[in-house]
C-alpha cells in the first residue's frame, strides 16, 4: 500500500501517508482521518460496510490529487479510502498533505475530503440497532463546476 492514492480493505495508517508525502522535505504535514461514528441521525450505529466501484474510485482519487495540484502546486497529497466492514472508531478515509507552509496544507486537505464525499464512487451501508440503511449523499458528477467551487470555498474559508 505504497501509492499516494489507494482503495483498500486493510486498516488505514496515517504514518504510512505522512511517509508517502515526504515529510522530511517540507514545512508542514496536515492530516485528516475520517472515523466511523457510533451515532447517526438518531440511530445507534453498530458498524458500516463500505462498497466502492474500485477501479473508478482509484481514478477519482487520482483526479482529486490533480485538482489539488492545479490549485496548490507546492502541496503533495495522499488519499487512502478503506472499504469493507468497519467497526465504530475505525478510520474510513485518511488524507495527508505536505506543504511548505501550513495554510496550503490545511486547505488542500479540506478540499480533498470535500471532493471525496462529492465524487468518489464509494457507498456506506449502515447497520444500526433495529435495521440497516444505505446512506446516499451527493449525485456524483466530477464536471459539476458548482460542486467543485463549493469544495474550494469550504477549503479556503
Amino acid at each position: 500500500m505504497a501509492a499516494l492514492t489507494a482503495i483498500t480493505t486493510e486498516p488505514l495508517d496515517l504514518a504510512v501517508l505522512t511517509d508517502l508525502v515526504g515529510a522530511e522535505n517540507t514545512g508542514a504535514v496536515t492530516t485528516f482521518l475520517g472515523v466511523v461514528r457510533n451515532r447517526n441521525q438518531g440511530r445507534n450505529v453498530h458498524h458500516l460496510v463500505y462498497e466502492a466501484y474500485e477501479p473508478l474510485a482509484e481514478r477519482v482519487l487520482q483526479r482529486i490529487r490533480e485538482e489539488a495540484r492545479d490549485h496548490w502546486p507546492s502541496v503533495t497529497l495522499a488519499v487512502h479510502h478503506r472499504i469493507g466492514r468497519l467497526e465504530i472508531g475505525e478510520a474510513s478515509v485518511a488524507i495527508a498533505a505536505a506543504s511548505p507552509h501550513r495554510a496550503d496544507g490545511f486547505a488542500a486537505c479540506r478540499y480533498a475530503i470535500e471532493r471525496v464525499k462529492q465524487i468518489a464512487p464509494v457507498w456506506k451501508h449502515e447497520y444500526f440497532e433495529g435495521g440497516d440503511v444505505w446512506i446516499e449523499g451527493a449525485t456524483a458528477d466530477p464536471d459539476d463546476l458548482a460542486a467543485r467551487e463549493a469544495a474550494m470555498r469550504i477549503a479556503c474559508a
Partner: protein
Amino acid sequence: MTVRLFARLRDLAGTGELEREVPAGATVRTVWDSLTREFPDLAPYAESLSCAVNIDYARMTTAVSEGDEVAFLPPVSGGAW
C-alpha cells in the same frame, strides 16, 4: 455488454452484474430504460444516479456498444460525515 450496479441499486436488482445485448445506436439511457423495465424498483433513481462507461464517468447521452461496461451509481457517500 456488461452492466454493473452498486450499493442500493444492486440490492434492488438482486445482482451487481448483468450481461445484456445492446442495440445499434444505443446510449446509456437506452440501457437504463431497458433496465428499469426489467427492475421497476430502480426507476426512482432516474433523477439522482450517475453513470460510467468503461470506468469513466459518463452522461446518459453517451453512446455505448457491444463490449462496453456500463455502471449505474446511486448518490455517493464516501468518507465520514
